[in-house]
């Protein structure tokens, strides 16, 4: 139950990818017959991606994943507009692909404003508008957060950006496949996506670049992707992204309804059955499959290990799982104190999950949380206090 981390490639997707490994393996840059299959396949995938987000075909550029798309968007605009300005606005809860790229730019003469979020993880449109300056060249706000699932007011951000003539990028890696997206209606100038979050393969993504937006390349070389993203195309991967996105959106309504119901059932039951828990993220404006909860007095990694014993996959924003000493920057940004962030658990539901599985996870959680709390000196203290 960790579909926000990655998803398996769906059978229909893999089936469509297979011929492009060994049979129709031609290099799309070649001019002979064999390579036509690759060219046509890429073209079809581009069309599928474009259609899904209401873009034009020639506004879609394939990349080696969501992280590359994010890096390209930020650095490509920064490098292109360097002479125009050096100020970028983003938020405190972005994925590291955005944050670390911004930090890199800060070391190279750029100035970055990291917008605050409220307790639900929402940015303030007011603060955004007040942050725009004469030298602001880019606003990058994620479509939906990968940890707490909060969906940002993208359309409103788009309007503000457009009004002030600032380019607007959104990291939609978690949103694509799960939420309806219309780049025209939402005034989005650049949008990143990644195939492995929507039952497509790892190592392939795309960047939407609105017609008219000028951007420097991140990866220079051959003339692939209309001279904007060099490197021999990952043909099977691109085919997989195209198929996966088409499938996801043909089933969007039905999957969303199902996931939202399961999600809310899960949240409600955890809250009912386990004391001293806190739901992180927005109660309604959240990704259909996202459940993020803090369990007081315990630590996330030990929770994950215990769940793993029952083959339940999950993730945590605890300091112990982060590899660094701090808990997740997202949990801190929504105002959680360290000790509470420590006990965070993210369960992200996928299209194949069932109510039985959810019940199983809740049952196990009840046991595990109780067990870990019994071991916790904090819990002990707290109970004494009562």
């Amino acid at each position: 139950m960790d579909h926000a981390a990655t998803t398996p490639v769906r059978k229909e997707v893999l089936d469509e990818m297979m011929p492009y490994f060994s049979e129709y393996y031609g290099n799309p840059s070649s001019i002979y017959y064999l390579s036509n299959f690759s060219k046509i396949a890429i073209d079809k995938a581009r069309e599928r991606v474009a259609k899904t987000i209401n873009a034009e075909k020639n506004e879609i550029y394939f990349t080696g994943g969501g992280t590359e798309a994010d890096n390209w968007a930020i650095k490509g605009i920064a490098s292109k507009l360097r002479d125009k300005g050096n100020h970028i606005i983003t938020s405190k809860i972005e994925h590291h692909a955005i944050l670390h790229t911004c930090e890199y730019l800060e070391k190279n003469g750029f100035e970055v404003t990291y917008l605050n979020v409220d307790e639900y993880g929402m940015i303030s449109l007011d603060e955004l508008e007040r942050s725009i300056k004469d030298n602001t060249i880019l606003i990058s706000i994620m479509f939906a957060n990968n940890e707490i699932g909060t969906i940002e007011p993208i359309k409103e951000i788009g309007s503000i950006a457009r009004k002030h003539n600032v380019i607007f990028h959104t990291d939609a890696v978690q949103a694509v496949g799960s939420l309806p997206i219309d780049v025209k209606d939402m005034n989005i100038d650049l949008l990143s996506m990644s195939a492995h979050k929507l039952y497509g393969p790892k190592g392939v993504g795309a960047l939407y670049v609105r017609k008219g937006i000028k951007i420097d390349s991140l990866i220079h070389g051959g003339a692939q992707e209309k001279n904007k993203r060099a490197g021999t195309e990952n043909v099977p991967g691109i085919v997989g992204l195209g198929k996966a996105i088409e499938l996801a959106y043909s089933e969007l309504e039905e999957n969303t309804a199902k996931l939202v119901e399961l999600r809310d059932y899960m949240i409600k039951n955890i809250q009912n059955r386990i004391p001293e828990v806190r739901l992180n993220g927005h109660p309604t404006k959240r990704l259909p499959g996202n459940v993020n909860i803090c369990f007081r007095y315990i630590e996330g990694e030990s929770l994950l290990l215990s769940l793993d014993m029952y083959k339940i996959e999950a993730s945590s924003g605890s300091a112990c799982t982060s590899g660094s000493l701090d808990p997740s920057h997202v949990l801190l940004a929504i105002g959680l104190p360290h000790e509470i962030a420590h006990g965070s658990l993210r369960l992200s539901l996928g299209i194949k999950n069932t109510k039985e599985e959810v019940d199983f996870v809740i049952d196990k959680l009840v046991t595990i949380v109780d067990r870990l709390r019994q071991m916790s000196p904090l819990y002990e203290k707290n109970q004494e206090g009562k």
Partner: protein
Amino acid sequence: MMYSEKVMDHFMNPRNVGEIENADGVGEVGNPKCGDIMKMYLKIENGIITDVKFKTFGCGSAIASSSMATELIKGKSIQEAMQITNKAVAEALDGLPPVKMHCSVLAEQAIRKALLDYSKKTGVKIEGLDENEFHEDDLHEIEVED
């Protein structure tokens, strides 16, 4: 790049390849930069192009364009031949890829240059034909939309 079936047909089975001995008009155009050369030979009787042949050093699209151009002007009057544009050649081939449109320009230019040669040799004036129009350097300066 994908060529239409018609382009491939004219490339593999080009019509009117060769030379005409004692041609009434010969036109050679080329792009000194990319190195493509097209040479057109005309036989003209009473203002009618009765025979035409070509030789081309160039890509598939250049060869197909030459072949199609000869078909389009064979049996036509000088004035009709003057109306043949590179677009007409490309359309007759069911289109050319954008990056290859300049090859059809070569065909249009070769016809006009052969007619100019005829005009010079015979003193027959051809309206709309000007010696100064053959700036070979301009051949590839066609704006291509991406």
